[in-house]
Structure formats: structure tokens, C-alpha cells
């Protein structure tokens, strides 16, 4: 899957998580951390990860989130792009 498309889709999913994130573009989320830069709290992260799993058809185990530092959106985009159907 094209990484550029992946960023577009991730940005669209962030819009669903919180109204405050509505204006974020695919470019703007590059290099960003979900909690440290975008201000998501623990419940927002749970919601966002579910949306990513459903949208990309991938299962993201808790241990992968920690081990692969998937709260960093660059890591997440690469992770789902490599695994998405």
C-alpha cells in the first residue's frame, strides 16, 4: 500500500476521534506522536487504534504498540502499510 495514501487515511481517522483534530492534514501528522504532539488521552488512543484496525483490516496487539512505538504516526503508518490487505 502507498504510504502517502496511508497517511491520508490515518488523518481521516483522527478526525473521527476528536473534533479538535478536524483540521489535521496528512502532511501535518507526519513525524507526530499521538499523545505528546496531538494531545490524545488514553481513551482517545483506544478509539483510534480500533478505527485503524477496522479501516486497514489489521490486528494491532498491545505489545506491538509498545515494542514498535506505534504511538509515533510514522511508525504506525509503516506498520499498517506493510500489513494491510
Amino acid at each position, binding site marked *: 500500500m502507498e504510504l502517502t495514501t496511508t497517511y491520508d487515511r490515518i488523518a481521516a481517522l483522527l478526525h473521527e476521534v476528536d473534533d479538535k483534530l478536524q483540521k489535521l492534514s496528512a502532511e501535518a501528522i507526519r513525524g507526530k506522536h499521538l499523545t505528546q504532539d496531538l494531545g490524545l*488521552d488514553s*481513551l482517545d488512543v*483506544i*478509539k483510534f*487504534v*480500533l478505527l485503524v*484496525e*477496522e479501516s486497514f483490516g489489521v490486528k494491532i496487539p*498491545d505489545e506491538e504498540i509498545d515494542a514498535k512505538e506505534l504511538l509515533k504516526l510514522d511508525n504506525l503508518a509503516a506498520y499498517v502499510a506493510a500489513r494491510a490487505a
Partner: protein
Amino acid sequence: MKHGISAIAHVYGERRIDNVADGAQHGFDEAFVRGKLGITTRYAASAGQATSDLAIEAARALLAQTGTRPDEVEALVVVTQTPDYQLPHTAALVQRALGLPTRLASFDMSLGCSGFVYGLSTLVSLMAHADMKRALLITADCYSKVSDPSDRATAPLFSDAAAATLLTDTPLYRPGKPLFGTDGAGAETLIVKCGGSRAPADRSTLYMDGRAIYSFALSKIPQHVEQCLALNGLRLEDVDRFVFHQANRFMLESLRDRMKLPAEKVVIDVADGGNTVGSTIPIALEPLLAERHRTIVICGFGVGLSWATNILQLSDT
């Protein structure tokens, strides 16, 4: 179905907890506790209070409120997973304390957040089968007795409470056709791994995988509710109020948004009391009884994993 719900009463544990102050001790800011969890006050049983004490107090309030004499009660179900003892069943303790007749049919049901919907179906079926007029359905749990108050995943959510529901053959609301679900593959996502026959002497406390529970609820419940409505010949638009298990505000708003339900139809009643496990649905239903909505959906989901949905329809008589 002839039998159904006539009245509800509930009580909380004696100890009142300011959840904003308590949450701060766990590193949660006020906006998160009030806005996201939506729970400002919680309640815990005192050291001397057990589950049956809450169940008895709720039942006494219900009997007094409805003018029901103890000897008129023919069946009693207590839904709990934190019984006073491993044996005997808590319903027997409640029967003794309330002075209910010894001809009473009584038993416990081991279910959590789906327990009210299961208990209602079970008890109305028993009442029809045995031609009974009055029965008590009690949901009661004291999670504070089995949880670690320093656990950030569970501490800011749960309260100890009991709700008593009077079921009669001349009810205010009659249940429709229920729909159930079970998936033991998720058994370890909400669990107390001690006290039973596998680890009787261990002292582990409540564990909850919040992400797994959230994913389960969001992926299973919307379709389940629509299936239950179809089973009853109804559509989402026919429903006046949706009473989901009151886990927390975030969960309820997520379900509401995913199902595209009007905000005014989705009951969110967690600010005072939070997640009372099997009692959240009757506690949220209690004030609705007086509002006389025609059709109410009740849907419980959680530990098991277990889920159940039904509709309640206002009686014509």
C-alpha cells in the same frame, strides 16, 4: 409475555468517593474524569457491608415503595459475581433477612454487566412457567472488595450498588424477545483470578483489559441491538430510549456515535455512581419508568464476555 417490570429501587455502598479528587491521585486530570469518564461520584461498601447487605437494603426500599408484603414474593434471583460467600447462594441470605416465605424459589446468577437483561428473561419465564404473580430481581455487586484501589484501569470506574426490581403479572413494562451472546475467548479480559476452585487461596484482584472490552463492545453491540429490534419487528427509529450498560461516558458516546443515534435518546447516567456492573441498567431505568416512554431498549455487555439485549414496551393496561 404477561410478566414484566413494575418498579425499581437502588442503593449504593455507604462510602462516598469524590472521583475527581480520587482520580487526581491516580494522575487523571479533572477534564478527563468529568468529561471523558463522566463519573464525578463513586460509592464503595464500608468494611462491614457485603453484597447481601446492599441487596437487602434495595429490596426493603422496593417493598416499602410498592406496598408489597414479603409473603407475596414467590421468586427471587440475585445476579452477582461478588457473593457474600462461595456458598450458600446470596439469595438465601436475602430471603432470610427479608422474611420472604420458605416456599420461595430462589437462586443466584453469576453474570456481570449483562446480568440484568439475562435475569429479567430468566425470571419472567420462570414466573410464567410456575404461574407466579410477584418476584424480585436483584442485581448487586461490591467490586471494591475484589479490586485494587491503586489500579488505574479500574479504580476510577466502579461503584458498589444494588438494584431491586419488582416483576409482576400486571407490569408497567413488558419485555420483548431477548437476544443473547457469549464469547469465552474473552474470559481473561475482565477477571478476578482467585477465590474459585482453580486458585482458592490466591489473593489476586480485578484485572481489566479496557482496550479489549471497548473493542468488543463497539464491534458487537451495534449489530446486536439492530438484530434484537428486527426480532421484535422494530427499527432504530421506533425506540424512544436506549439504555446501554453504563460503563462510562466515553463508551456510551462511542456507541451512540457509531450507531448514529440521537443524543436525546441515549441515556447517560454515570455522573453519580459510575459503573455499578449489573445494576447500571435498572438504576438508569428507574427514573424512566415515570416518563412512560413506549419503547425502551436495554442492552448489557461485559465480563464473560457476555452480552444481552431486549426491548421493554409500555403496557397498555
